[in-house]
């Protein structure tokens, strides 16, 4: 009696096991390859920048000189430009992006929401160069003739809004980056908000909350992780954006306090100079800039993770 049952069980088990093992290894292989690629990238950046690291040392991060003739290089203006333009971009895109996502998920009728989301996701697919061209022909003259003079008139006493209104500069680059990151924030935040269970909303409404109270105090905090994730996705794009930035930032390798002044960013200088960087130190310095950008991205992402851990309530099932 026991033998036939035992034999039958053994026969049924085997094929399922092989398939599982194979699937497991294939998926593991993909994951390992991805991890290996990331590690290899960092190793290559490290090796490629060796010449610059040895001759420039830690002073590279604080120096403002960028002189290919005397082979003195400093990363400060580029780090400053990258951080400033990304900060301006986030400051502008978070309210607009999250606000639009809340509207599309909570307040808009389903048809309107779907149609608008389709259009917004198309915006996310537009190449960077197109945004740059649009910016040069429409945004830059607008900034130069209307917006920057208005800012100067209203806030000219602040060091952030001084200097000639050129149209190109940190502010314009930040604006273009904001336009490019908003579709990402809207798209992912809307998905997170839609994923909040109906029970939560119905419970809030049953307890007497208004629509806005429900949205702001129940739904948004529930989707907080997703919204934060979308913001950091947008930030990642803003930090690495190259063509659109180099077309409107002015390409001036110096640190300026004013947002109206022209500057430079890490991605822009690499794009402009790498093709013809001669000698050993110039290309190595540019690769070291790439390493710095990688470092900045890692630091920001680590900070984001810590913030998420800190703000998630203890005992919550979600990680």
């Amino acid at each position, binding site marked *: 009696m026991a033998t036939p049952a035992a034999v039958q069980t053994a026969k049924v088990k085997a094929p399922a096991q092989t398939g599982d093992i194979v699937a497991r290894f294939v998926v593991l292989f993909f994951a390992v390859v991805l991890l290996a690629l990331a590690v290899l990238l960092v190793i290559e950046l490290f090796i490629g920048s060796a010449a610059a690291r040895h001759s420039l040392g830690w002073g590279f991060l604080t120096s403002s000189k960028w002189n*290919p003739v005397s082979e003195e290089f400093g990363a400060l203006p580029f780090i400053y430009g990258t951080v400033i333009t990304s900060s301006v971009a986030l400051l502008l895109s978070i309210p607009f992006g999250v606000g639009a996502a809340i509207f599309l998920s909570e307040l808009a009728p389903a048809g309107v929401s779907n149609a608008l989301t389709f259009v917004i996701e198309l915006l996310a697919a537009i190449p960077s160069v197109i945004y740059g061209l649009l910016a040069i022909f429409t945004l830059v003259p607008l900034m130069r003739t209307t917006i920057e003079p208005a800012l100067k008139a209203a806030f000219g006493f602040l060091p952030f809004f001084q200097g000639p209104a050129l149209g190109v500069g940190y502010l314009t680059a930040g604006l273009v980056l904001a336009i490019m990151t908003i579709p990402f924030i809207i798209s992912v935040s809307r998905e997170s908000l839609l994923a909040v269970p109906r029970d939560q909303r119905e419970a809030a409404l049953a307890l007497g909350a208004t629509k806005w109270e429900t949205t702001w105090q129940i739904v948004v905090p529930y989707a907080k992780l997703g919204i934060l994730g979308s913001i950091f996705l947008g930030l990642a794009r803003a930090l690495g954006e190259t063509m659109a930035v180099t077309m409107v930032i002015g*390409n001036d*390798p110096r640190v300026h306090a004013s947002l109206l002044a022209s500057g430079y960013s890490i991605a822009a200088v690499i794009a402009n100079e790498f093709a*013809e960087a001669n000698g050993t130190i110039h290309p190595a310095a540019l690769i070291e800039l790439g390493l710095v950008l990688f470092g900045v991205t890692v630091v920001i992402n680590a900070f984001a993770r810590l913030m998420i851990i800190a703000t998630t309530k203890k005992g919550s099932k979600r990680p």
Partner: protein
Amino acid sequence: MRTVSWALTGLLVVGTAPFAAAQKINACGASFPAPIYQKWFLEYGKAHQGVQINYEANGSGGGKKGVTDGTVDFGASDMPMTDKELADAAAKGRKLLHFPTVMGAVVPSYNIPGVTQDLKFSPEALAGIYLGTIKKWNDPVIAKDNAGVKLPAEDIVVVHRTDGSGTTFVWTDYLSKVSPEWKSKVGANSAVSWPVGLGGPQNAGVMGLVKQQPNSIGYVELLYASQNKVPYGMVKNSAGKFIKGSVDSVTEAAAGAAKDMPKDFRVSITNAPGANSYPISSFTWLLVPEKISDPAKAKEIKAMIRWVLTDGQKECPALDYAPLPKNVVSMEMKQIDAVQ
């Protein structure tokens, strides 16, 4: 169905045969002579069926690097290669020869609303503007040479190149010769540490920025300014006269150098002597490896250079480039034989 697919395949093979037979030669480099190079290579391709020369204007720096690394068959640069660069190339097994093709002018073009006349720039004015010591258009140093022109009290928006550029080399070479302050602070090279200004890629990028920004000044090759109808100024030469960049004034600038042309053709003609010579002139060179591995390509490149030095020269004046002096051409014809 089978016969149809075989027929289509046969047609495809036969149809691409002429393209397969075409000799493709790749070149890249200076944007300074790009307009005439592109015209030449197009005409050469039409006249010589089966030869297709692709030229990418990514800056002199790109041209030097491309031909040194071997990613292109020949390069183009307005800055002659330094001894170190030639040694680096030779170390990679590529001994490079310089072939001057045309001469051109680098002009200070500007966009000042309300000013349609030609401005006169002294060496002190140009050096001061690019050093950042002269900040406004109505500065006395500029105004004294331009009596009668209403210069606005606006900040000067300086435009320079972002990429490795022979045009930059010509401009900074001139400024180094006329301004000791420039020479010590900045120097002459294809990429320098600019004290002030916005940057644009290639001549076209600088021209675009100047056209867009009011009260701006930028240095470009003569053709870009004249074709885009952007005003460009006269520059005071070593004889004290204000001269505008043109075929004649550039030809005169090269006249002196042509007499004493060195064997490797590496010479600078900025701030050249001569009553009517334009001070910011330059030769531009093709950088050709002495030994080209593919014999068919070598034959085509040599034939192309001969064509450029004879028939090609006739096209120069129409595009505001100055044709080479005759003795330089004969010296180059001899150098072509060295290419194998």
